[in-house]
């Protein structure tokens, strides 16, 4: 019997899970599989890293048990109106409380690896449901990438990644077992692995490294309680950097998958990150309106750029790594110095949010897209507008082919467009839904 808790469907699972649990009384209650999801879903919004009401947190085993089991249990069952938890809703279902009680009677054992690890890390790997055979309707394309020497296109699907033939837009493969939403797709320089960041909004976040050949899972990383937003390999493919709604930036070794360093400098979601060409620096863009540069040789922060007045959605280095381009929700693209965080110039200022920015031909030009039905090109030196590639809907995702001759966009209505940059001609256009 599989006791893996699917926290995406806690309410459903609880009902179906409790009965067998009671029947199979010999099966001991597991903290990581049974209790951790309850604490995570019922308590952590008020008693977690973001809010820790009363100075109490449940986000790790150690912290949750700080008050002792009796107190924890008392808070679930007391009739005192001022003391019952949760304070704003019906008491926890009796079955859930019974699980806690039984766990105590069985000896309060912690069955995770690290009592200081966050609950999301110790809850056993979540198996994702299969994607629907056919989509009832197209969904926004939140991530796109070229693969297989630009012959294939990867797009975000629902609980899956979709692989299309670039030439004619035919669906080649569906790689399932992935989180509900995918916010970022990045191909390893070797072309054999892909890092996918995503999750289920408000519920879970993760980064999966997938083997492109057979779609198998290489590694599950950066598990959190809300979406992971970006995961990118360094140019040589030895490191993977991830970031997300938990505000952290993590760097992993691609051999051992050990976490090399974590930067928790942002106070809000980290929307995007990018590597410098030499692989020594990472730049991040956050909902906290700042952009930061980290040095991986010293594992320290180099600079913070504070010139945006909205959340920063997208960041890239120039080819030298001395300058950064960052774009934000208030429609600005800013060009600033890596070392000092000092602005050089403003390259765009429009009313619509900008979601994506990408460099072209040796970074003389760059393009951006956002909450407008077009992709715009700008000359980096002169700041002058170049070509404009118009579409019908707002583009949420953007990628440039490795030969920088083709442009790929995914829009809010599920549409995908492959455009020749030189001529502006639409090479392929289709709805990216099975």
């Amino acid at each position, binding site marked *: 019997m599989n006791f893996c808790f699917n926290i*995406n469907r*806690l*309410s459903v699972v609880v009902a179906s899970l409790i009965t067998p649990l009671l029947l199979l009384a010999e099966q001991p209650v597991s903290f990581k599989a049974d209790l951790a999801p309850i604490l*995570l*879903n*019922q*308590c*952590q*919004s*008020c*008693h977690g890293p973001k*809010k820790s*009401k*009363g*100075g*109490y947190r449940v986000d790790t085993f150690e912290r949750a048990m700080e*008050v002792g089991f009796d*107190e924890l249990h008392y*808070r679930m069952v007391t009739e005192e*109106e*001022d*003391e*019952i*938890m*949760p*304070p*704003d*809703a*019906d008491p926890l279902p009796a079955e859930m409380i019974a699980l806690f009680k039984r766990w105590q009677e069985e000896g309060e054992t912690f069955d995770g690896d690290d009592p200081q690890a966050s609950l999301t890390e110790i809850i056993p790997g979540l198996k994702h449901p299969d994607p*629907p055979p056919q*989509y*009832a*309707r*197209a*969904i*926004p394309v*939140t991530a796109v990438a070229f693969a297989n020497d630009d012959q294939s296109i990867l797009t975000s699907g*629902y609980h899956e990644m979709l692989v299309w033939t670039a030439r004619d837009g035919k669906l080649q493969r569906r790689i399932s077992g992935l989180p*509900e*939403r995918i*916010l970022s797709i990045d191909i390893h320089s070797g072309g054999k692995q892909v890092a996918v960041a995503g999750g*289920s*909004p*408000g*519920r879970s976040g993760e980064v999966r490294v997938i083997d492109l050949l057979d779609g198998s899972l290489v590694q599950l990383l950066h598990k959190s309680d809300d*979406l992971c937003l970006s995961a990118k390999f360094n140019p040589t493919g030895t490191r993977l950097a991830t970031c997300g709604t938990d505000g952290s930036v993590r760097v992993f070794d691609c051999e051992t998958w050990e976490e090399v360093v974590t930067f928790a400098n942002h106070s809000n979601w980290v929307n995007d990150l990018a590597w410098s060409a030499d692989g020594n620096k990472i730049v991040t863009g956050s909902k906290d309106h700042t952009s930061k540069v980290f040095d991986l040789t010293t594992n320290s922060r180099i600079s913070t750029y504070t010139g945006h007045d909205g959340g920063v959605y997208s960041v890239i280095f120039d080819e030298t790594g001395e300058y950064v381009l960052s774009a934000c929700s208030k429609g600005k693209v800013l060009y600033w110095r890596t070392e000092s965080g000092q602005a050089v110039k403003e390259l765009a200022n429009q009313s619509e949010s900008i*979601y994506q920015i990408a460099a072209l031909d040796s970074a003389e030009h760059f393009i951006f897209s956002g*909450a407008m039905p077009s992709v715009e090109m700008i000359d980096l030196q002169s700041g002058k507008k170049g070509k404009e590639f118009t579409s019908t809907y*707002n583009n*949420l995702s953007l990628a440039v082919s490795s030969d920088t001759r083709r442009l790929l966009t995914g829009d*809010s209505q599920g549409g995908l467009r492959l455009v020749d940059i030189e001529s502006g001609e639409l090479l392929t256009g289709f709805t990216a839904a099975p």
Partner: protein
Amino acid sequence: MRSWIKPVKQGIVSRCTLFSLVSFLGVSAQLVLGESAQHEEADLPITPIQVGTPERIEVSPSEFTICGPRDQLQLVITGHYANGEIADLTRVATLMFSSPGIAESAERSAIQPLADGETTVAVSVGGCSTSISLNVTNQKSKDPVSFYYEALPALSKAGCAAGGCHGAPHGKGEFRLSLWGFDPVSDQHTIINEEFGRRVNLIEPKKSLLLAKPRNDVAHEGGLRLRDSDIEHEVLVNWIKSGCHVEKKPPRCTGIRLTPGKDLALKRPHHTQQFRVEAMFEDGSCKDITHLASYESSDEKICRVSRHGLAVGMGRGEAAVIVRYLEYIQSTIVSFVEDVPDLNWETETPANYVDEHIYAKLEKFKYLPSGMSSDSEFFRRVHLDLTGLLPAPAQVSEFLDSSDADKRSKLIDELLETEEFTLFWTQKWGDVLKLSARQMGHGGVVKFHRWIRDSVASNQPYDEFAKEILLATGSNLIKPTSNFYRAGSDTSDIMESTAQLFLGTRIGCAKCHNHPYEPWTQDSYYGLSAFFNRIETRKTGRKGEIVVWMNDEGDVRHPATNEIVEPWVPGSHPLDLDPESDRRKAFVEWLTGKENPFFAKVEVNRIWAQLMGRGIVEPFDDLRDTNPAANQPLLDALTADFVEHDFNRKHIIRTIVNSRTYQASSKTNQWNKNDYRYFSRYYPRRLTAEQLIDALSDLTGIRENFASVPPGIRATQLPAPDLKKHDREKIGDIEFLKVFGMPERQTVCECERGDDSSLGQALELFNGKTLHGMLSDQNNRFHLAHQEKQATEAILTDLYLRAFSREPNEEEKKIAVEYFDTAKDKGQALEDIVWVAINRDEFLFQY
């Protein structure tokens, strides 16, 4: 009499754990529990409907068209009985359809469509029956769920778009909706597109964050707000299923209609009423939206309204049932009456129309008024209300000894002509006209104060008073009323202040969105602003002087359209504006016109509140349909009387103070102890800060002297609270006044004056510097009397007459004399006796 300072809660918390703090911090979330508990009607105290034998039944509507597969029709079925009573029989009626398969009866006698066609619905209950004709159309329509008219109202109904939740100016938890769906364009983006569409799940709609959060499937700080059985849930799921479709150009909604729409009276056991709400559209169509509207009650102690539109009486009295759909608000007043056994209705003979209206209302709700106050009580009360000061012992004795039958009304006439009356009532106006050195400088305060004083002394008609203030032009030192404009920071502030003062309207909300509880819209806000936008103020070279003048250009632009807004006043008549003249004139003319529905009303209500401690409408400067008056006929009568007497304020004061209602005892009887709003007795209230310090001065004979005013000026006569710089080192006078709630006069709201009790007050009265100084002063009245070897009883009698306007009784005398005689330090004993008197409710309160 209630105890007024609650003892400080001792630290006897046994489980002083981390969690205590947690739950303390979680208090805001506790509010949700109340609503959550009320979610299902089973939690409301509904007694089974007693059908009895109605003479006839009335079914509303008489004919109806259901147009669309998701529409419904809520019937309202009323039984009429031989004794004139009515009962809502909606939920017990039986519905029969002449043509099968067209429609069916669902819960609460709501009709749901099945297929296109016509049918007659026969409604029967209690042996009566009647029928309505129903036309069902458009059932095969594939029209997706309407974003504007179904999804947004569902979010409002679930509470998501409420002002305390995601409808707050900055939202909650990084999710911001417009207040009550006021801005659909913004909401559309927020819900569908923001953060790459994270809030909706187009493949599995039920899993959408938008629904999982309020269902509490995913931890939600706002708690459980939505059950998957709720209609709101169904609407939102279907809307997301449709791909979050947003109509391009929906027909505009023009308003909503509530049935029963007229005010109604329900008598227990028939204390429930089902409502139906319809929305009207510009294309002439009309839909039943009972299931999508949101419901509120103006007073939960009297009435609660279920989410299905069922009003349930909780106690005797009236409450407004408030219905909201999109930006539209409708309300109706429901009175809940019941028989009270053993009540023998007997009242004083009404002295004037005030008593007639008050008694009529009290009789309706069976709150027996208290008897008349004693002469002592009345004498003390009327002095405090009209002069702000306690009467002197000789006056008390003279009044108590007098056998003149008209002595009360004669006293009232005398007091109304005193200098103290003028100054005390000048202070009341000073509060709301923001007379303070900070707002208008020392010179400005002195001039403006003098002007108000002269206005009160001469009993200037109220319309003239308002005109002089609002039309002020010129130097604030020459034309004192221009200080009104000096105290306003900008056009918005001036207009909002004017509206609150003279229209009894808190229009501030409408600056950013349509008012959530009133028909005031953003257009009204900027239309009114346009009258004041051309006012300019400029400093002159002279110290403390500013000049107010009217520019001949300058327009208000609507923030949404950026178009110029023309001056506008409520009511339909267009204004004939002379482009050459001061725009304010047109406004003031409308304002002070005898037919203005707000102007006179807010002033009589203000006077009433100042005398009775609570407005007929409360708060007294917040007149709106959704805040029903405790006694509308009385408010109307006072208003009419005021207008008829050319806005004579003293006439209104005299009328109220001469009423039996004003002169009633503050003691409760067994039939009115639950009344808190219908004036069945005089409601006791704490002396104001200024009254208290003056009372202490008079009692002890030690005068407080205030800086920057001539000697002899009392606290109740001070022109402003900040004539003297606040000195932390010298705790006393002003500090004492602040602790007891003297307003700083930074807003036009009377609510700035604090009437609550606090630990600071308890400490001041226990051994605060001010009080201690007065008591221990060897030259105070009691020490002097003692030094003059006056008899203890004489000293005691003097104390009681001054403090309570009565003589001590035998027991009080005995205790005090014994204490005094056995004490070693006689001076100290005397101080103790006075201290005890001061700390009695009988001293600290007006009753």
